[in-house]
């Protein structure tokens, strides 16, 4: 009996091949499907979030771009978020020291300020959880440009966006405007304290 040996060959069409360059259309698109640098409506939620504080359109766009997007080929918000988070932490500590003086006898305050508030309570005011909530409430989620391995929008990416707006106002308009931005937009409009308090109780 004669056997005939046969071989079946199948091939899969890969979307990309190793070593080849990707088309910009493939990687310059946000998870929401918006092509960078976005449509006229892309910046609208960010401008509403900024309120009276004016930033140039390229700077607003930079605040919305995470480092993971397009392999860092377009301006991204990492350093803006870095300085913004430091300023936000400082302003939260200042606000708490100023407003918390009633929690102490006068002789234990320093020039009428309370510097003995628990660090956990102040850290929580500027934590990724709280800032992520603010980003969601401001409706910025669909306008962010990012890429994560799971394509999942994490609280860290959202928090960096909010921090980046603080940093952008600081670098563009100076520290007085940045402090006013934090007080007006984050503390009054989006009330950091009311978001932080239940989180603090949950973590305790």
């Amino acid at each position, binding site marked *: 009996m004669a056997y005939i040996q046969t071989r079946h060959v199948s091939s899969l069409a890969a979307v990309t091949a190793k070593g080849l360059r990707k088309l910009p259309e493939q990687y310059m698109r946000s998870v929401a499907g918006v092509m960078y640098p976005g449509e006229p409506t892309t910046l609208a939620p960010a401008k509403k979030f900024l309120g009276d504080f004016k930033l140039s359109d390229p*700077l607003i766009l*930079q605040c919305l771009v995470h*480092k993971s997007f397009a*392999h*860092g*080929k*377009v*301006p*991204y*918000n*990492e*350093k*803006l978020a*870095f*300085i913004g988070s*430091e*300023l936000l*932490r*400082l302003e939260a*500590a*200042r*606000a*708490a*020291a*100023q*407003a*918390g003086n*009633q*929690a*102490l*006898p006068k*002789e*234990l305050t*320093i*020039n*009428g*300020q*309370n*510097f*003995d*508030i*628990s*660090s*956990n*309570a102040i850290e929580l005011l500027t934590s990724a959880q709280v800032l992520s909530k603010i980003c969601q409430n401001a409706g910025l989620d669909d306008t962010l440009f990012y890429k994560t391995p799971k394509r999942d929008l994490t609280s860290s990416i959202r928090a960096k966006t909010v921090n980046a707006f603080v940093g*952008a106002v*600081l*670098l*563009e308009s100076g*520290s007085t405007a940045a*402090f*006013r931005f934090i*007080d007006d937009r984050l*503390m*009054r409009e989006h009330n950091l*304290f009311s978001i*932080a*308090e239940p989180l*603090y109780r949950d973590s305790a």
Partner: protein
Amino acid sequence: MRRVLGPWQFLRKQSSYLEAHTRVRGRPIQLSIAEKVPRIRALQHRLQLNDIPADALARSLIDGTSTLDYVNNTGLSRFGRTLLSFYALRHFMIKYPRLPSHVLKHLVHQYTSMPALAEHAKLWGIQPDNRSSLGRYLSGEEDTDGLGFLSYSDKIQEVEPGIQKIQSGSAVTSLTDAMGGCVRAIVASVYAHRGLELVEQFVSQYIIEPRQVDLTQIMAFSKPTRELSVLCAREGMEPPVSRLLAESGRFSSQAVFVAGVFSGDMKLGEGQGTSLNEARTRAAVNALQGWYLFSPKVSNYVDAGEVVI
């Protein structure tokens, strides 16, 4: 005495949140007693802090591990750390806006870490006193005699000559951490009485300016030629090309090559080495250092971010 008022008076509604999270122990330091302590007066004059009340400075010198029955500097130190981190970061971010984030973090750490601040405390003439309350009692001293010294509980205790006991836990600390903490607390005291603008001047004058760090030494590149190629592509420049500019003793044991890296007609950097490859790599590093250490004249320059490779 000038009150520093912010626009956040509305936060008083949140006093329940702040009251619930306030932690303080010890009794207040009386101003009349602190004013009579020679060491505190000397510190006031040395740092030009005559407008800062002596009781605030005395409190800044009492670490959280101190056995003195006075309020300590824990909260002040924490606040001072926030102030120092922000102003150091802002200083370098405005001066060198293109520095990579990890270099910026390292630089801020170089200026605001406990060992760095402890050096300042030594220069300011702050002297430690780590005696226990029993030790002070046996010496016939009271708590008020400990004011003006940096009061803390050292984690290293000499049990007998030549034998040291190292303790751990939150009740003890090292001399370096106690010294660093008191510098942070002094910065916070300056803020409390002078406000933000003047504390920025204080930080600049006493913490940042006296210390010089060579930035070219702390920047390291793992793949400089590749990073330079990506940078040129991102900035829309022609791809970098290395060219040999000069050489000496190619066939000897001490050859020297000088290479330049060019983008079109523009020379980006130059480097020398004992091989062609070393010279080319050093030229790329030189070009990258020139890019990252760019210092603009305006203060609102916003960088696009470091190169991702």
